C-alpha cells in the first residue's frame, strides 16, 4: 500500500489562554476562556496540515488529475503538461474529473491531490527527467517533446535503475548517519501496485501483461499500456475498491477449463457450463425420453391424481412440483403431453376394471344401513326425513320407491318370531351353491346374493353371525381353486419401475456432485489467487528492503575493508 509522505509531527504548543478540547463528534477544537471564543482551527499557529487521506491504489487514476495541477517547483511546463495527453489540462475527457466516468453520480469524495515534488534528470537520457510526486509516485517527462508517461519506456529503464541505486545509496548513508527511519514515501522503490493487477492476466490481455512484467522493477505505477487505452483502464480501475477481486463467469469458466486440463479431467468431470457437449458419454446413467415420461407417469400415479381432472387444476394445486420426478421432463409442453397420454391410459384401465368387477349391489349398503337404523316406531316418511343426509339415503342408484319397499318389509319382518327368521336365513344359506358358499368362505366376506337379501338382516348381527359360521363349518370344501395369475407381469413391472427410479436418483446424485465439485474448484481457484496476491505483495516488500540491505551490507563491507 501507498504510504503517506506526511510525517506526523507534534503540533506546536498553543498560545496562552487557549485550551484544546474534543467535541462529542470527535473533532478537536480550541477554546479561549478569556476571550470566550472557540475555534476549530488551531490558533496562533498554521492550521494543522491535513494529512492526505490514505488512498487506495485501485483508485490510482486520481493521479492524473493530480499531475495536471500546477506546481511551480516542478518546472515551467508543468501547467499544460499532461501524461499521455488524456488529462483535464488537455481537456480531452471531462470524465476524469470525479471518479472516472460521468455515468456515476456519486458525490465526489475528498481526493488527495498529488503534485510533482522533485525532478531528477536521468543520466544518459538527456531530454527525459524523472519526476517524483508528493504521494511517492513517479513518472518520466520529456522536456523537449513535452510528453510524459506513467509507464516508463524501455529505453529509460537502465538510466532509472542507475538513478535508483544512487538514491538508495544516498538514503542508506543518510540512514546510517542519522539512525532515523527512512520515510518510505520518499523511497523510490515504494512501488505502487494495485492488487487488481495480479488476477488480471486471466482476463485475456495476457500479452501486455507479459511484457510489462519484464520491467516490473522499474515500474512504479500501475502497468498500463503505452498508447493509453483509457476506456479499458477506467473500467478496471473503477471497480469498487472494497471488493478486492471481482470474478465474472468467464473467469470462472476459464479457470475451470485450465484446472481441468491441469488435472487431466474429462470435460464431463467438471461442469464447464455447456452440458450438451458432454452429456452423452461423460455421465454415468442415461435417462431416455421414455424413462422420463414413465417417471412422470409414476409420479402421477403415486400422487393419486384423478385422471378425469383438467390439467389446469393439476398445475394450480402444485402438489407435484416438489417431487424430483417432476424434473424428469423439462418443459411444460412435454409434461402436458405425457399427462394427456397417462390420463387416457388410466381412464381406459379404470373402465376395464369397472367392467370386470361385479357391480356392487346398491341394496347391500342400504340394507346394512336399515339393520342399524330401522326402528318399528318410525314410519317411512319419518325415517326418510330423519336420515335424509345419509349417503345410503341419497344414493341415486337405488330408487326411492325401492328404498321404501325395503324399509316396510324389514319393519314387518322384525315383528315375526325369531324361529321363523332363523329358518328363513338357513333356507337362504342352503340355497347357495357350493361354488359361492363353502367352508373356505369367511363369515365377513359372504357372497352378495346373501348380503342383498332382506332375510339376512332380520336377525340381530351377533346371533346371525354365529348361525352363519356354524352353518359354513358344516359345508364341503370348494370344488376347485383358481390358480393365481399375472404375478409374473406384476413382478416385471415393479422391476422396471425400480430401475427408472434408480436412474433418476443417479442423475440427481451426479448433478449434486457436479455442483459440489464446481464449488470446490471455485474455492480452490480463489484461494490460489489470494495466495498469489499475497505472494506478490510480499515480493514487492522484500525487493526494496532486500536491495537496501544488500547495498548497506556492501557499504559496511567496504568500510571494514
Amino acid at each position: 500500500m501507498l504510504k503517506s509522505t506526511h510525517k506526523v509531527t507534534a503540533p506546536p504548543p498553543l498560545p496562552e489562554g487557549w485550551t484544546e478540547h474534543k467535541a462529542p463528534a470527535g473533532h478537536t477544537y480550541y477554546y479561549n476562556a478569556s476571550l470566550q471564543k472557540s475555534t476549530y482551527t488551531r490558533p496562533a499557529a498554521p492550521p494543522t496540515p491535513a494529512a492526505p487521506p490514505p488512498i487506495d491504489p485501485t483508485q490510482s487514476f486520481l493521479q492524473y488529475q493530480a499531475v495536471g495541477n500546477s506546481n511551480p517547483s516542478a518546472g515551467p511546463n508543468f501547467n499544460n503538461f499532461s501524461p499521455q495527453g488524456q488529462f483535464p489540462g488537455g481537456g480531452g475527457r471531462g470524465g476524469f474529473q470525479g471518479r472516472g466516468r460521468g455515468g456515476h453520480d456519486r458525490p465526489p469524495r475528498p481526493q488527495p491531490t498529488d503534485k510533482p515534488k522533485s525532478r531528477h534528470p536521468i543520466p544518459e537520457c538527456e531530454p527525459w527527467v524523472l519526476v517524483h510526486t508528493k504521494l511517492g509516485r513517479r513518472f518520466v517527462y520529456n522536456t523537449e517533446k513535452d510528453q510524459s508517461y506513467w509507464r516508463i519506456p524501455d529505453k529509460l529503464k537502465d538510466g532509472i535503475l542507475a538513478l535508483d541505486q544512487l538514491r538508495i545509496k544516498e538514503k542508506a548513508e543518510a540512514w546510517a548517519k542519522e539512525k532515523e527511519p527512512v520515510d518510505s514515501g520518499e523511497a523510490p522503490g515504494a512501488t505502487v501496485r494495485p492488487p487488481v493487477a495480479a488476477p488480471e492476466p486471466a482476463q485475456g490481455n495476457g500479452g501486455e501483461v507479459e511484457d510489462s512484467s519484464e520491467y516490473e522493477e522499474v515500474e512504479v505505477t500501475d502497468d498500463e499500456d503505452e498508447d493509453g487505452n483509457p476506456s479499458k483502464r477506467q473500467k478496471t480501475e473503477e471497480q469498487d475498491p472494497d471488493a478486492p477481486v471481482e470474478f465474472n463467469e468467464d473467469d470462472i469458466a476459464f479457470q475451470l477449463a485450465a484446472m481441468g486440463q491441469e488435472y487431466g479431467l474429462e470435460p464431463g468431470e467438471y461442469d464447464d457450463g455447456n452440458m450438451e457437449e458432454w452429456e452423452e458419454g461423460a455421465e454415468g446413467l442415461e435417462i431416455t425420453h421414455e424413462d422420463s415420461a414413465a417417471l412422470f407417469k409414476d409420479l402421477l400415479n403415486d400422487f393419486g391424481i384423478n385422471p378425469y381432472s383438467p390439467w389446469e387444476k393439476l398445475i394450480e394445486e402444485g402438489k407435484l412440483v416438489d417431487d424430483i420426478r417432476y424434473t424428469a421432463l423439462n418443459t411444460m409442453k412435454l409434461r402436458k403431453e405425457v399427462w394427456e397420454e397417462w390420463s387416457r391410459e388410466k381412464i381406459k384401465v379404470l373402465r376395464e376394471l369397472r367392467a370386470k368387477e361385479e357391480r356392487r349391489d346398491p341394496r347391500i349398503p342400504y340394507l346394512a344401513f336399515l339393520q342399524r337404523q330401522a326402528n318399528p316406531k318410525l314410519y317411512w316418511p319419518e325415517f326418510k326425513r330423519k336420515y335424509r343426509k345419509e349417503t345410503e339415503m341419497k344414493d341415486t342408484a337405488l330408487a326411492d320407491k325401492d328404498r321404501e319397499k325395503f324399509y316396510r318389509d324389514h319393519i314387518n319382518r322384525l315383528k315375526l318370531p325369531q324361529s321363523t327368521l332363523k329358518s328363513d336365513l338357513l333356507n337362504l344359506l342352503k340355497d347357495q351353491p357350493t361354488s359361492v358358499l363353502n367352508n373356505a368362505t369367511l363369515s365377513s366376506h359372504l357372497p352378495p346374493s346373501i348380503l342383498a337379501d332382506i332375510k339376512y338382516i332380520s336377525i340381530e348381527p351377533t346371533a346371525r353371525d354365529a348361525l352363519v359360521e356354524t352353518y359354513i363349518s358344516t359345508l364341503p370344501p370348494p370344488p376347485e381353486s383358481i390358480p393365481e395369475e399375472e404375478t409374473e407381469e406384476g413382478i416385471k413391472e415393479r422391476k422396471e419401475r425400480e430401475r427408472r427410479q434408480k436412474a433418476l436418483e443417479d442423475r440427481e446424485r451426479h448433478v449434486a456432485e457436479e455442483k459440489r465439485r464446481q464449488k470446490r474448484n471455485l474455492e480452490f481457484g480463489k484461494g490460489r489467487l489470494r495466495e498469489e496476491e499475497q505472494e506478490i505483495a510480499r515480493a514487492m516488500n522484500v525487493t526494496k528492503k532486500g536491495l537496501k540491505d544488500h547495498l548497506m551490507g556492501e557499504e559496511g563491507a567496504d568500510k571494514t575493508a
Partner: protein
Amino acid sequence: MPAIRHASKRKAPPAGFSDIEDDLLIFSNKMKDAENAPTTNVPRHQVHWPIFQISHQRSRYVYELYYEKEAISKQLYEWLLKNGYADAMLIAKWKKTGYEKLCCLRCVQTKETNFNSTCICRVPKAQMKEDQNIECVSCGCRGCASSD
C-alpha cells in the same frame, strides 16, 4: 348452469358422472366467484371476460373428455350438454378445421363487425407484427388461431 330441480324430481345423471363431478363443481364455484366479483374498477368491455374464460375452459374440459380421451359415455356427454355444463355450439365449431381453438362464438360473428371481419384474435401469430400482444374486445382472447 343446470336448472335446479327438487331432489325427488331429479333424475340421476348417467353413469360416470361421479368421476367428473368434483371438477365440474370446481368450475361452477369459479363461475360463481367470477359472477359475484365486483366490477367497479373493470373497464366496461372487460366485465364479461372471466365469464367467457371459465365457460370456455369448462366446455373444453367436457369436449376433451368425450372426443379426445373418450373418458365419458355418450349418454353422459349428452346429459352434460343438456344440463348446460358445456356449450354445444362452441363444441360444434371446434370440430371444424380452422376452428380447433376458437375462444368464443362472438369472435367469428362477422356480421357484428364494421368491416365484416372476424375478431383480431383469429389472426395467426405469424401474420401479426412482432411483439404485438392483443386481447380481443369480446372475450379477452390473446389469439386462438389454429396455427398458433
